[in-house]
């Protein structure tokens, strides 16, 4: 199946802004994160189809996964 991955802020600068990714049925967000090479420690926000999700969220064909780095105030 195929999902669309959107990266933001420093992730976008380091990897890409938007890409289609092939993955196996039953794949989780973590599989996408690992595939790109993003450290889980640097991951701040995960959205699937615009809703907050976890690394263990199971993906479906056509999902849009948004990944954002940790952010902080000041």
């Amino acid at each position, binding site marked *: 199946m195929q999902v669309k991955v959107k990266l*933001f*802020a*420093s992730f*976008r*600068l*380091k990897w890409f802004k938007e890409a289609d990714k092939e993955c196996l049925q039953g794949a989780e967000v973590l599989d996408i994160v690992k595939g790109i090479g993003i450290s889980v*420690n*640097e991951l*701040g*926000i995960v959205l699937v189809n*615009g*809703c*907050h999700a976890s690394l263990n969220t199971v993906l479906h064909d056509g999902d849009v996964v*948004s990944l*954002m*780095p*940790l*952010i*902080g*105030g*000041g």
Partner: protein
Amino acid sequence: MIVLNNKSKNAPSSVLYRRCTIDLAIQSVTFEDVPCRNLEDVMGGFGRSFQMLAERKIENAYCPENPLIVNTGLLTGTNIMTGLRVYFSAYSPLKHSSKGLPAAMWSAGSGNFGSKLKWTGVDEIVFENRSSTPVYAVISENEAGPHVSLKPAGHLLGLSSHEKIMTLNKEYYDAHFAAIGQAGENYDNVSMGAVALSTDNQLKSGEDKCRFAGRGGMGSIMGYKNLVAIVAQSTNKLGPITPEVRDANKVIVKGGGSARFQPTSQGGGGGTWANYEVLQAFFAVPENNFRPKGNDVVEGLFRENVEKSLDVHTEACFRCGIRCHNNIFQRNPDGSRGEFIAKFDFEPLNLFGTNLGIHDGMQAAELIKLCDNMGMDAISLGATISYVLDYNERHPDKTMFSGATFGQFESIRELVVRTGNGELPDIGHGLKRLSEKNGETAYAMQVKGLELPAYLPETNPGYTWAIAGGHMSMGTHMLLAKEGKTSLDDWVAAITGSGLLQVGHDMIGLCKFVGIGANHDAIVSAIKSTTGIEVTSHELGQAVRRAYLRGLALELRQGYADEDFTLPSQVFDSPNEIVTLPNFVTSEFVGELKKRIWEIFAPEMVGLLPNSDKHFGKTKD
């Protein structure tokens, strides 16, 4: 600090801090070594200063009995990374209850002033009364210990905060400085005066790279006291780096908590500037007075767009491994780095940029520079001006302050300058007073008399539980964007748990960007190795909790009532459907949240203030 060996190392009374009391009216100086009453005293910062403020009944911030307390934290001036913090505490001329009473406030800043102050041998200065003429205080050290003198400051009047510091720097070797700008001098018309703190980088380069203790008008309190600047002169006394401190610094600099503030070139998030892009993904970047439009003009202040015309250089505070801040320089025609303009952090960048309808990096930088140099709090001034622009847009036939509206850079610039010069007291005294005078409070972005930082109120009901600034004293401002949490249980847990623990950094002397709590095991070990004081993580956490609750209790004693614990009513009455984050903050939600939180907090607050338990019953109903 003196740690006595003849008592249990777990007893706070075995630790003494050196307090210097300066009576500005009669120019007397008293030193005393004060035994700590509790762990809050040992930790320092607002944990200690609020106990002194609690002993005084102050009804007007500008009165001689309102002390200005300048102190450090237990780890200020140590080798532990970010241990540079200094705290200014007093009853605030800006933050006040609906009954008109001033709230107790503290404001924290970095730079090197805090370390220098501690190295003079003084842990805390209490400025009592006010001087009849402008003075500056010099805290220095000699063979007998710390020494204080008060000097005439007439030659410093009218100078910017940076100019005052550089003038004093010519006279005092091996010193660092705290100074007010013109705004603090005009305290009677400006309640949002900030205190500028010198940095090594500033003194060496001559560029105006101060740090600021901005919130709550502590610079205005200095102005009222006719205290124009403070000089801390001492040799450097950084001790050896113990293995425990080295380990703590590794946790800080390599841990995920601080990574978000590191430069992108080091694999980090690029400082707080990164918030822009992440929040824009939800259309949650404050725009035109905290009302996002869902457009892409916000992107004008994305880093990559600013870098097209300006030079961005990432730097760190003295000896800090977290290179969190982005200094903005002009770019010369040949492409080389030109003149320094300002430091871009998320708050000032947004509140003097997008939130005023300014989408040009150079214009935002110039406004930030002006605000800094004149010595005002960027959050309070930016949010108050955005209200003025909003009001004028809503009332084109009945405008105020020459009718400036969003995006009108020259008019906005004039508002900044005139406010700093004391010519616009309606702006200078802050948003709560201005909006109440206008009779239009719904879109005044303040809570409990303090202007909101650059996070939308509809995303953070925790603002009502902040005790000294919306995002610096209650760590819930990113909770919705980060985790999408919208349940009552989640928000009760966050506010009464991890959220309040954020204030621990403002006791112990560390910056919030360390990315670990003040009660982290690595900090516990570092405390023991640098000071000999043995405490547990649990004890530190409990002390932080008591200090926070004491601050909350002080709010109640100063007249804060149920109606003060709320958000701007626009949040409830006119939700912004453009923001894509869940819309859950209704008046009913906030009401239920209050009920649940008071049930937890009220019993714990009993006994935290001298002779004042009766106050808790008043508000919690």
